[in-house]
């Protein structure tokens, strides 16, 4: 492992897409909260699988099947170690974080949530951590409760405490880092409070696991979800972590081949953990590719990634604050947030701003960021968002600031 800070210059060479030009300008990719770019080692791992040992897994005895099974299961071990789970049995591969939440809302929710129960989320949540609970509440006639966010982007912890004391509260599902405001939520404290009332907690770690060290044993969460594509991995792979004692009681969700031990005409014996939750041919190539992504992150070190993002975020926010007409949303101290900056500039609509920035080769996201509840809170329909990762540099931030000034000129503000 490297000493000191990230060697961003060297890192950039591992990402072939960074030599791409957009509108004749070098690509500046600031849409990392949506999905990150992939290093060559990940792209090559997928290619290597298809070129050399592509095979269905688990069920065959020929050599390529064994190699593929081995590589697939090796990723499960890497994931378990990466988040420090007790055992690989607790790691379930899904399509994405969204599907992972749905497994909980369906398989766990339908058994454990009843009429008049309450499910608690926050106003910060991504749609993927809202809609499944709305549907579950609808089906079971439970109710959905929100922990409020103040205008600085922080959760109202008094309200949180009160909600947790309500004896009908049966689940808390909460983001560790907001994909819009960047707010880092004190999940450890919330989990401690929740467990005091025997309330299980799901952590939506889609924006934390890629960017900072995460340890499921320390935080003691009951469920955790995240997506490979937001942490250098391929699209099509998500992770559901479930604490073993809960997992053992969980009914399967998707059923079919591979998740069974014995199928008879009218009954079925399910497979052992975690296979019971992975039905049909899995996304073998991409799970293997995800293994290479974890290796890459481990080589850099999650602490250093976090430091790099704090620095870059601070640098960008300092410059943005100086632009007249700029509104920044969320915590203003980079230490309290992930590498995500949401903002608006005068009356320029975020989509228009994104179009103008695109002409400068800069990819940012604009819109509701799948967080319309939060948008309603701010009485907005859209924000612009720049989000950083390991390959972004202060020089890119400088160009971004220039582009913002160009947008002001075009709009005459």
């Amino acid at each position, binding site marked *: 492992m490297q000493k000191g800070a990230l060697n961003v210059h060297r890192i950039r060479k591992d990402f072939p897409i960074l030599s791409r030009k957009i509108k004749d300008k070098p690509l500046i990719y600031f849409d990392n909260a949506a999905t990150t770019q992939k290093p060559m080692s990940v792209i090559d791992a997928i290619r290597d699988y298809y070129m050399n040992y592509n095979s269905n897994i688990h069920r065959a005895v020929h050599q390529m099947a064994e190699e593929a099974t081995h590589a697939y299961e090796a990723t499960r071990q890497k994931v378990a170690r990466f988040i420090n789970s007790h055992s690989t049995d607790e790691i379930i591969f899904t399509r994405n974080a969204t599907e992972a939440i749905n497994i909980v809302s369906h398989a766990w929710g339908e058994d454990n949530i009843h009429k008049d129960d309450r499910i608690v989320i926050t106003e910060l949540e991504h749609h993927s951590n809202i809609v499944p609970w709305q549907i579950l509440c609808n089906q079971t006639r439970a109710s959905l409760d929100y922990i409020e966010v103040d205008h600085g982007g922080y959760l109202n912890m008094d309200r949180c405490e009160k909600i947790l004391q309500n004896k009908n509260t049966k689940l808390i599902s909460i983001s560790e880092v907001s994909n819009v405001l960047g707010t880092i939520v004190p999940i450890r404290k919330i989990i401690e409070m929740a467990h005091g009332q025997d309330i299980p907690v799901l952590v939506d770690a889609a924006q934390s696991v890629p960017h900072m060290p995460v340890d499921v044993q320390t935080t003691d969460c009951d469920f955790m979800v995240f997506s490979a594509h937001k942490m250098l991995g391929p699209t099509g792979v998500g992770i559901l972590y479930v604490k073993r004692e809960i997992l053992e009681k969980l009914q399967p969700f998707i059923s079919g081949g591979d998740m069974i031990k014995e199928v008879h005409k009218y009954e079925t014996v399910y497979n052992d953990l975690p296979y019971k939750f992975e039905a049909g041919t899995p996304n073998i190539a991409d799970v293997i590719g995800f293994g290479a992504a974890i290796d890459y992150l481990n080589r850099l070190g999650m602490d250093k990634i976090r430091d790099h993002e704090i620095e870059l975020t601070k640098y960008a926010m300092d410059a943005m604050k100086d632009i007249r007409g700029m509104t920044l949303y969320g915590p203003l101290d980079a230490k309290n947030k992930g590498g995500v900056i949401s903002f608006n500039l005068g009356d320029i609509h975020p989509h228009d701003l994104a179009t*103008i920035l695109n002409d400068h080769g800069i990819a940012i996201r604009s819109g*509701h960021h799948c967080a319309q509840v939060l948008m309603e809170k701010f009485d907005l329909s859209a924000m612009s968002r720049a989000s950083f990762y390991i390959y972004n540099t202060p020089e890119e931030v400088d160009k971004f600031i220039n582009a913002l000034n*160009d947008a002001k000129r075009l709009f005459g503000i």
Partner: protein
Amino acid sequence: MSEDIYREIILDHYRNPRNKGSLPNADISIHDSNPLCGDEIDIHLKVEEDMIKDIKFEGRGCAISQASASMLTEQVLNKPLNTVKDIAKEDILENIGLMNLGPARIKCALLSLKVLKLGMVKYYADRDPGSAKKIQDESKLY
């Protein structure tokens, strides 16, 4: 390039939209949003003997969606309702002078037309359910 897109006229319609507001006693009110970006448009119509006697829009969104809604309302006011079905995607883009929009931004430009067409179909369907299918087919949405 941005210079071509954000011309005076677009910014003028964005900042001073024509026919913006509510319309009490509208004969049709219809709402839709662009799921991709969250832009929203409501269109309210007053129709007399198949003529669009009054039209207002409400909404929020980017300069392109707001300006194109503003221009579209100007274009159809005092025109026969059933001519709405003949307005094509290209008409809108030409109107606002943006033939080279990318696919994502095109949806912004066309949202108001989509809402207007939905409104027209609904209007006829309410009055003559039998004809709804036919009108819907004729007024193919881009």
